[in-house]
């Protein structure tokens, strides 16, 4: 399948938005990073907005979006509902931040924020689980997005906290756990994609009179570690390893202005590369038409 850049940006930025909002809720629950709460909320809202705008570039007739929109079995509809719910929780969160002063967000709201952030990422990943595309139809695909959110959030939150002179022990712990989770889940999904290589219909020899010289997988391969997908798969792994390394270095040096930014950059590179592989391996189970 051709690379769908609006969708690659949409999924990556939404994972970032959900991860950052979830992280700031975690920081609030632990009573850390009070001065970082409002910048983090603005950041996650901006990421959500930019991701939402990006997805419109994928639609050929976005002006018809509410022309019957709302078919509940559609993953797109479910995504929109989850985004609206997260936006509503963000607004409530904003109101509490403004009314109660710094770090006065109630624990229940922080808990709800974490749950809604996780639900958004799960719903987003689930909308791409299609039986027609073996490489996509895996729970580990959702896991890879959750991993990205777990790494994006703490890295960005630690960076903001460092800028606001609010470093805490949570920075190191959350970053190490989040970055390691991202590495493990990204590699696990790549392995899962590789394992689907034998899931496609095979007919030995065949001929399509309309495309006599076209390979059935012109953009790469049905597996991430073969053909044109290899480069992006390797980048995804290396960037995820670098992200994990940045968390350990940040823990050792305590300079999260640098290592938070480096960590977030590594997750961005890893997540985008993984989504590139995702589209390159997005080949129909019956790939002959």
């Amino acid at each position: 399948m051709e690379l769908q850049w609006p969708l690659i940006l949409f999924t990556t930025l939404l994972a970032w938005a959900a991860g950052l909002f979830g992280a700031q809720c975690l920081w609030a629950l632990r009573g850390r990073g009070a001065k970082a709460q409002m910048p983090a909320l603005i950041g996650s809202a901006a990421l959500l907005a930019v991701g939402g705008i990006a997805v419109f570039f994928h639609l050929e007739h976005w002006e018809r979006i509410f022309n019957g929109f709302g078919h509940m079995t559609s993953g797109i509809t479910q995504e929109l509902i989850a985004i609206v719910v997260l936006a509503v929780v963000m607004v409530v969160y904003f109101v509490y931040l403004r009314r109660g002063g710094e770090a006065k967000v109630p624990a229940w709201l922080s808990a709800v924020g974490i749950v809604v952030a996780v639900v958004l990422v799960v719903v987003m990943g689930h909308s791409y689980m299609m039986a027609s595309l073996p490489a996509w139809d895996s729970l580990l695909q959702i896991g890879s997005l959750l991993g990205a959110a777990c790494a994006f959030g703490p890295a960005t939150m630690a960076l903001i906290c460092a800028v606001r002179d609010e470093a805490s022990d949570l920075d190191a712990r959350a970053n190490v756990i989040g970055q390691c989770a991202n590495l493990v889940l990204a590699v696990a999904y790549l392995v899962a994609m590789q394992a689907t290589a034998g899931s496609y219909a095979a007919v030995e020899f065949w001929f399509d009179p309309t495309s006599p010289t076209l390979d059935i997988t012109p953009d790469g391969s049905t597996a991430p570690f073969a053909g044109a997908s290899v480069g992006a798969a390797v980048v995804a792994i290396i960037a995820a390893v670098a992200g994990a390394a940045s968390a350990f270095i940040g823990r050792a040096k305590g300079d999260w202005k640098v290592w938070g930014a480096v960590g977030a950059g590594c997750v961005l590179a890893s997540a985008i590369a993984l989504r590139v592989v995702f589209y390159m391996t997005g080949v129909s189970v019956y790939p002959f038409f």
Partner: protein
Amino acid sequence: MATNAIVTDLNRCVGCLACMVACKAVNNVPIGSYWNKVLRIGPSKKAGATSARDVEMYYLPVQCQHCENPECVKVCPTGASHVLEDGTVQIDKSKCIGCQFCAMACPYGVRYLNEEERVVEKCTLCEQITAAGGLPQCVIQCGGRARFFGDLDGGIDSFEAPAVGYDTDRSYDNLYTGNRVKLGDMVKEYADGDVHHLPDVGNGPHFAYILRDREWKGGE
């Protein structure tokens, strides 16, 4: 409710591609896009082959299979893709936002984006003709009289194609009132095991293919 579909007798298909051409002509399918394609499957060695020349092959017309549980309908956010009373899957172009998730969800890749109208299209099973009692154009034009159209609820022996014979009335108009031959009266005997479907990943393809004395390739 009905379950309209096409059954193709692959032992009769000669690979003339007339169904492909007829479909493009009657449905104004854009250059480079197809609602129906005839693939050649093979040549592959026969079971127990003793030489490289001992091979077999068949032609396989592929199009929208108008499935029982169409994934394309499930993922459509606006209901543009929907199932009609006659069991066929159709697209309301005025509702299509061009998200192309239906094209991704189709196991057979038979949907495509019409670049000019910026909506997704595919085989309609010639709804504009069949709703008036006629036959799909690919069935009418089939050069090997291999394709038959009908309601699965009546069994595939009841499926129909234009009548054959040198003295047959060949006008299209009379196909709306009869002038047809039934699959059960036309094709050679087949067993239940000779009736195949494209791979089913939970979508339940309605179209069927009859293939005797050769190995069906690609799974079901």
